[in-house]
Structure formats: C-alpha cells, structure tokens
C-alpha cells in the first residue's frame, strides 16, 4: 500500500462559518514529498515523493534492498544531508532552514544514533563513550560521567564503565552504543542496521532493549534494517523502493 499523508505543514485556512477544528497533534518528525538524487555528473534518482510522519514514542522500521537509499533517508532525518526536493520537518521546524550550528545542536540535544558498526571510540572507556553526547551538549564532566553510568546500567552493563571497548562482545558493544544514544534523553533515535553485525541471539537482546528503552522513555525510533525479524518489533514497518515508501505489516 502506497503510504501518503496530507501535508500537515499547510493547514486549511479556518472558515468563519465552520467551527474551528481541534488543533492537530504535531508530528515529531515529518517528511513531506522528499526526494533525493545521487551522483554529480550523471545524477540518478534514489527516491522521490516520500511522505512519512514519526510521532513521539513510536518505533518505525524501514526495510529495503541494498542501495535503495535507507541510510540516505536516515541522513536526511538527522539533518546530515539535504533533500533535493521536499521538506524534512523536525519539531515543526524545516531542517533546510537550520544553519550548520543549529543542525548540530538539534542532533546533540534531540537525536540519538545507533550504528551497525557501533562506532565506539576505541581509546575511551565505556563510560567516556556514553558520556560523549552530554559533554558535547555542554554538561559538566562529573555529571555527564555519572549519568553515563546510569545509562550503562539501563542497558544491562552496570558497573562496567571503566572497561575498555576492546574487551566487549558485539552485543555488548551495541548495548553501549544504545546507552550512548539514550543518555541525553533524545526525542528520536535513528538506528542504522543495529543488528547487522550481531549473531541472532545478541541481535534479539539488542532489539528487545531498543524496544523497551525507547518505549520507557517515550522516545521515537526509526530503524533501517535488512532484517525482517528486526522490523517485526516495530509499531509500523515500511519498504523503501525507487517508487517511494510503502507500509508493510510489521510482522
């Protein structure tokens, strides 16, 4: 089923005759007719006319074949890249209108990231890795480190803040990454193939944790994945193709 929604950004003008409509629930993140091309000399259309609404506390999964633009879509949601057409609206604000510093501030205060390759900094302890977003946001070092310990405990790694990244298993690394993504209480977590480097058992543990923690904190999550098992934990799942985004059954 082709998923299309009305553009909430262009509300109808209230009629003096009809009663005023109830104020709409503002989406946390909304993609409006978003399109993206790749390549400079001979540009190729990656996708076009994508509409998507992400509400607070919801977990969305996006599946698709390699090269269909799943990661690019996440980049657009994070303000790391800009669409060639359409709008990406976060908290009512068009990301295209944000400057570099404002976009960076949005990411460090309201978005958390989970990557397939974990991207933990190898020379930092687990606690330092997790505290990094807080420090980037200007939290005092002591408070940030204490909060990082709490966040590690929340992902099942209590008391391990002093350990080195190198001693972790894949599943543990992704738990640390999840702790880092949630430590600053973001409104949205963007997860790019969070189980791509994990064995099925570890993957199941990480997914359960992702579901549990985002729900507990009321955090929205958009996850792109190849795995239909992973997509199954989502509230809603979509398939990305050249012709756009199609909602599929989450199971």
């Amino acid at each position, binding site marked *: 089923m082709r998923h299309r929604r009305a553009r909430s950004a262009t509300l109808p003008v209230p009629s003096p005759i009809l009663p005023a409509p109830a104020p709409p629930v503002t989406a946390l993140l909304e993609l409006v007719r978003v399109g993206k091309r790749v390549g400079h000399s001979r540009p190729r259309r990656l996708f076009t006319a994508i509409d998507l609404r992400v509400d607070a506390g919801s977990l969305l999964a996006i599946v698709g074949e390699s090269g269909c633009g799943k990661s690019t879509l996440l980049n657009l949601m994070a303000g790391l890249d800009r669409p060639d057409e359409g709008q990406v609206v976060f908290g009512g604000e068009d990301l295209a209108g944000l400057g*570099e510093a404002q976009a960076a501030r949005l990411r460090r205060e309201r978005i958390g990231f989970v990557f*397939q390759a974990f991207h933990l900094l190898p*020379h930092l302890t687990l606690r330092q890795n997790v505290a990094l977003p807080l420090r980037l946001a200007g939290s005092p070092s002591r408070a940030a480190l204490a909060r990082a310990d709490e966040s590690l405990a929340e992902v099942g790694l209590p008391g391990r803040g002093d350990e080195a990244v190198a001693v972790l298993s894949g599943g543990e690394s992704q738990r640390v990454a999840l702790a880092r993504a949630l430590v600053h209480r973001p409104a949205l977590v963007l997860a790019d193939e969070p189980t791509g480097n994990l064995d099925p058992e570890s993957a199941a543990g990480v997914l359960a944790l992702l579901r549990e923690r985002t729900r507990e904190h009321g955090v929205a999550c958009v996850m792109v994945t190849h795995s239909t098992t992973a997509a199954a934990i989502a509230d809603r799942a979509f398939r990305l193709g050249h012709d756009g985004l199609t909602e599929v059954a989450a199971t």
Partner: protein
Amino acid sequence: MSARGARSPRVGADPLAAFILSGLRAAPGRALAVVLAIAIGVGMGLGIYLINRTALDEFSGAVQFLIGEADYELHAGRDGFDESAWARVARLPEVAAAAPVVDVTARVERKARPAGAADASQGEAYPERRMLRVLGIDLFRLARLNTRLIPMAGSASGAAEPSRDSLADLLGADTVFLSAAALVELDAQVGDRLGLRVGDSLRWLRIAGTLPGVPAGQRLAVMDIAAAQWQFDRLGVLHRIDVKLAQGVDDARARRAIAAVVPAGVDIATAQDAERRTSNLSVAYRVNLNVLALVALFTGGFLVYSTQSLSVHRRRSQLALLRTLGATRAMTVSLLLAEAGVLGVAGSLLGAMLGVAAAAAAIARFGGDLGGGFFPGIAPELSVDPAGLVLFCLLGVAAALAGALLPVLAAARVPLAGALRAQPQDVAERAIRPRLVPGLALLATAGLLCLLPARDGLPLAGYASVLLLLLGGVALTPAIGRAVFIRLDRIGDRLDAPAWMGLAVARASASSGMTRLALASVVASFAVMVAMGIMVSSFRDSVDRWLVTVLPADLYLRTAAGSDTGWLTSDELEALRSTPGIARVEPLAVGTLPLDARRPAVALVARPIDATDPGARLPLIGQARPAPPGLLPVYPSEPMARIYRMEVGERRTLALGGQSVEVFVAAIWRDYARHYGALAIDLEDYRRLVPGVRVSDAALWLAPGASASGVVERLSRDLPGFSRIEVTEPGIIREQSLRIFDRSFAITYLLEAVAVIIGLLGVAATFSAEALARRREFGVQRALGMTRGAIASQLALEGVLFAAVGAAVGGAVGGAISLLLVEVINPQSFHWSMDLAVPWALLVSLAGALVVLSAGTAVLAGRAAIAPGTVGALREDW
C-alpha cells in the same frame, strides 16, 4: 577491533580530553617526532636570541656606562683629532661641561710583581695575546659627567691601605687603575706593573688602584689624560670629548654650535646613537641567525602538517561520528587544534629548556658573539629574558597550530552523509583536487616581493619571499606529482615491466590527495637543504676566491692586531726592505672613518694602490675610472658603496685627517671582512693628508729563489722587536679564515641535518599510515600469488617515486630560494654580493640519499602490513 583498543584507557577522565589524548596516544612515535621538531626549532631560536640578547645588553650597558651623564659624545675614529677642539667646545655658552678623553687599546705583553724592576727584560710574558682598553681622562672634568669612572687608589677590597700620596697616583705619569674584570683577565693585582706595547717600545705602568664604579664584566683601565697622551705617543690628540649641555639648550642649536668649532670628521653622537651603532654592527648577523633558527621551526611546522594530515585522515570516521553526535565544525576544529596545541606546548617547553641550556653552554664556550668578533671585551653571563622565553614558546605553539590548521579545517569538512554507513573506512574522503592557481599565485607574489628593498637594513620582503616560495612549491606539489605519476603509469603500460613495478606506479598515480599533500615535508625539507647548500657553497667559494685576490704577497706581517699602539716604525720598514730575500715591501695603515653616528665607523685602509691599475691590489667589481686631475681617488668597498650609495665616477666630500677633502670614487671592490664598509686609499695620498700615519701591517714579496721560512728566520734574527710581530703565510690566513667561516656556518649544517630527519619522518608517516590502510590490498595481492618480497619491492619503488618527485620539486624550490639568498637577502643584510656556485655533487648525493632512505623507510613503515599472520598485532605507529 584493533589491538590498541586493549590498552587500558584513562579511567574517569573527561571524554573530550580523552578524545584529544587518544589522538596523541594512537601514534606516540609521530607525536614524539612533532614534539622534537618543535623543540629543536624553539630551542635553536631561543638559544640564539638569548645569546645575542645577553651580549648586546652587556655591550649596551658598557656604552651607556662610558657615556655616563653626558649628552653628547664627540669622536673621530682611531686617529683622533686635535686637542685644541676641546677648549673651543668647553668655551661654548651652550656647553655646561666638556671632558676630553684619550681612548686606546693596547697589547699587554708582560707583567711584573712590585719587587721586579720596571725593565722590559724582566717580568713575566703573557703566553697569549692580552688587550687592554685604556681611557685617559681629565679626572676633575670627567667627575662632573661620569662619577663611575673615578679611580680609587689601593685595592677595591680595602685590604691594602691607600697610598699616602693617592693624589700623586691619580695624576701619575706611569700609574693606571684597572677594573675588577681587567685585573682578573690579566691575573694581576694592585701594585703590579704591566708592560704595554707602544710602537717599538714597551711602556711600564704601575697598577695604582681600582675602578670600583665600573660594572662587573667590563675590562677597562683609566689613567690621567696627559700621562696617556705621553705614554701612548698621542701628544696633542684626543679621541673623544664628552659634553654636557647647559640647561635649556635644544639639540639643533647645540649641534650647530659644536659642529662649528670641531674639525671636519668629528661626529656628534648621543647615547642612543652610540647604542644604535653597537646594535647596527651586528643586527644583520643576529637577524639572519634568528631567521635560520625560525626555518627549523618552520620545517617543524611542515612535519606537524604531515602528521596531522595523516592523523585526521586515519580518524575521519571518528570525526564524522563526533559531528553526527552533534559536535559543530567549530567544536571539532577546537578539539583537533587542542591536540596540536598540546604537542606545541610540550615541544615549546622542551625547546625552552634546550634553548636556555644551549645558550648557557655556548656563551661559556664561545662568548657572546659565538666567535663572530662583534662584542669584544665583554664576558657576559646569561640573562634569561622572560619575554623572550614566552615569545619563543608562543612561536612554537603557533607553528604547531599553523601546521595543523589546514588538515584540521579539512577534517571539519568531512561529509557527514556517509557517516552512518556500515564500515568506518567507507566514510568518503573528500577528494583533494590538485589546483595550480594558489601555488602559482604564491610564487608570483614571492617574485614581486623579492624586488622590494630592505627595510631598516633588514631584508624583510626577502624573508617573506622565501616563505612564499616554499609554500608555493608545496602547494604545487600535488598537481606536479599527479602529472608525473600519471605519465609514468602510461609509460609503464607500454613496457613489459614486472608486476610489482606496474602496481607501484599505478598506485602512485592513483594515490590520494592526502598522500601527495604529505609530500610537503619532503619538499620543504629538501628545499631547505638545497637552499642552504647552494648559499653556503656560493659564499664559501666567493670568500675563497676573494682571499686569493686580497692576499697576493708571499708573507704578511702585522703588529699586535686589534691594538691602537702597535705600529711599525720607519726604521723597521727600512730594515724590512733591506732584508735579503725580500723583493718588495708594501706597508698598510688602518684607521676609521665615522660617517654616520648611528652606524659603525667605516674602516679606512691606506695601502699602495696604483691609480692606473687598482685591480692589481683590490678585487674590483666592475671597471675602474681614472680620477680627474686634482681629485683624490678613493676606493669604497662594496658594503660601503651600498650603505652610503656611492657609485664609480662620483665626487664626494669626505673628512680625512681633520679636513674636508673632495674625492673621486674610482672603483668599488669586494670585501667580505667588514660588512659596515671600508674605504681604500693610496698610502702616499693618505700620508699627504695625515702626516703621522702609522703603519700596522706590511705585505712582503720574496725575491726569486728565497724561501718564506728562510726569510722569517732571518727576520727573527735581525729585526729588533720581531717578538711583537706576527708573520703569516697567505695560505695559513686563508685556511684560518675558511675555518672561521665554516664555524660560523656550522649552524646551517645542523639545520640541514634537521631538514633530512624531518623529510624522512614525513615519508615514514605517510607510508606507515598508507600501508596500514592497504592491508586488504596486500592481502589480495598475496592471495593472487605475489610474494612478500615483491610487495616490499613495490613499497620501495613507491618510496623512490615519492621521494624523487619531492626531491625534484624541493630542489627547484631550494634553487630559487638560494638565488634569493645570494642575490637579495645577503646583499641587503651584509651589503656584499657573491657568485653563485652550485655544489652539484653534494646536492645529487643528498637527493640520492633521500631517495634511498625513503625507499628503506617506506618498506620499514609498511613491514607490519605485509608481515605474515600478524593482522592482530598491526600497529599504525612507527
């Protein structure tokens, strides 16, 4: 996960601080190299600065001390002026006080204890040459201007009772008072007698007391002015008049009044002029040394650039992560600059310690002028100037930050769109497209700047031009490297070369912009090597040829070099002429000619010069012109002609022998001995102007068949007073001169060594990082059947190709810089020119060594990546 991740991280540290430190800990070898490079630059710069500053402070202090409270110092070179001028000056209503001074430097030959008779045959001879500056003062008049010169009879410590007839001592005809430093230097005490050489006789003076007001470290003696005039054969002559102006008299009026009553050639200088004169004497020497030291810091900056480029290249996924997590560009730049700043601070602190230690050691070993002869009579103690310390530390940090700036800015532009991809190494490197325009623009600006004249006697535009040439060459290197490698690749395709060769060339031509940029350190270091090599070789070659021309005789004879009281009498000259084996004797007199109160006096060299063929005795630059009848031909040296803007064929009025004389500039000659200028004049012409000219040197030509050693032996036997005469063969003078030259330029060899090391570190840094990133590539090659030996050969060839391009570009840039040094900076600094002499053999050997060492370094740096079964132990460090 790499093995380095297993290192225990710092527990509890701030994550941002830990991120900065992680960059340093990831490659401690590279960090150490950067710290050392900065330390060497800061250490050399600070050391040279402290040495110069210490010596100059001491010397300025001495100048200030001698002038005391006087407003003006009237002086006229070594020959002095008629003492009648003093009475005329003292009578001027503008003058409140005027004190006459006789100022001579004499050679002290012997010392006798009080018990010994004042006989030249007695006492103890000094084994080495000892000089003593003696001021003849009018005690009662000078007391109003400079109380610190007032002598005290008896010893300073008061251990010995002052003599009962102290006044008689103060005004005694054979008494002298010495400063504490002079007593130490001469190993003498109050009551001893000193035998001072004056002409062909020895004058014995008794040390009657000390000079308690003279600052420590200054070797000085004072005696009554009339006694000094008599003892030193200077009757009726003054060297200086110190003047205190009456209240309310302005400078212009005072100068006019004084100039009207003093003989021509007497200079009216203030204390500031005298200080400036001292500073000017050595300013070019000091600035050039400092610039050389800064070159070391500059090449260190290039190493920072190379290592920082590689560091951010290696960590680009981490930087992208930081940006993704919300770090702004400014935050990323700050973090990376802080990392470079840590290296800069560490290097600067280490360099500061090195600099202070080196300065202390150098002053103790060579004196304040490193043997350059600019600050005679001064034995300074190192004074560490906090402002200088801070300045050089800041320069070190600035070099580290400047070197890191471009790579850091490039890192902050890492495209974030790829940051969320699966593998960290997939984060796209921003393509660096080699561009020609910035490099060409830098070179063009350098070309324009080198046309500008010196500012305050310093070739500032020339230095800027050197900097831009270096930066321009480095900026062009990526484009040149790409063009060369692509052509080589095409040629390789047509040849049936072994696979590893083809792979090496293909890899070089496809190398990343980062790799080509890392060539910067090779280019910069080789350019410095070539520039220094050509400049020193040209200078040495020119000095050598100049020495051959200015030393045409078979033997040179000189009386007490550096003293005012050693001269050859006419009888001695006659005896020389009649000595068997000597065919010709050419006497030479040396005086001084003050032309500008703020500059050191020009040396006046009077020797026989054939007006029809001056080139027979002087190494002329250009053609000579015969002087019109009635005009005195003079021959300014090249520095004098440049400083005072004199041209051949020009008429000038000069103050010679106390009178204004119209002279004709007949020719200009090359002189490397006096960068503040010399004026040559025919001895007979000079004698007509100054009847009492004293000859201090003589050049001797041997008769056919006579041997130098035979003549010297005969002179030692037959010539009275031979013991005070130094006879040298030109070969020995030449050898000594070149030895002094080599010692002066020793610092450039140190710089070249630093440059070689920095260049090789650049190659090592590049290849270690590249080779590690190519583990998979080598794995594939080995899977396809390539041996490890073949891969090592491939790496070696890549090292050769990179070093060859670096050396070629560096050689071209270095050649251009050497031209600037030879044609612009040296003439503007020292006012002399030289002929370009390229030491091809040295340069080719250096280039060859760099290429071979690069090949070895490339293999060594890449060995971990090609070692069997050591993937887990791979290190990115070297």
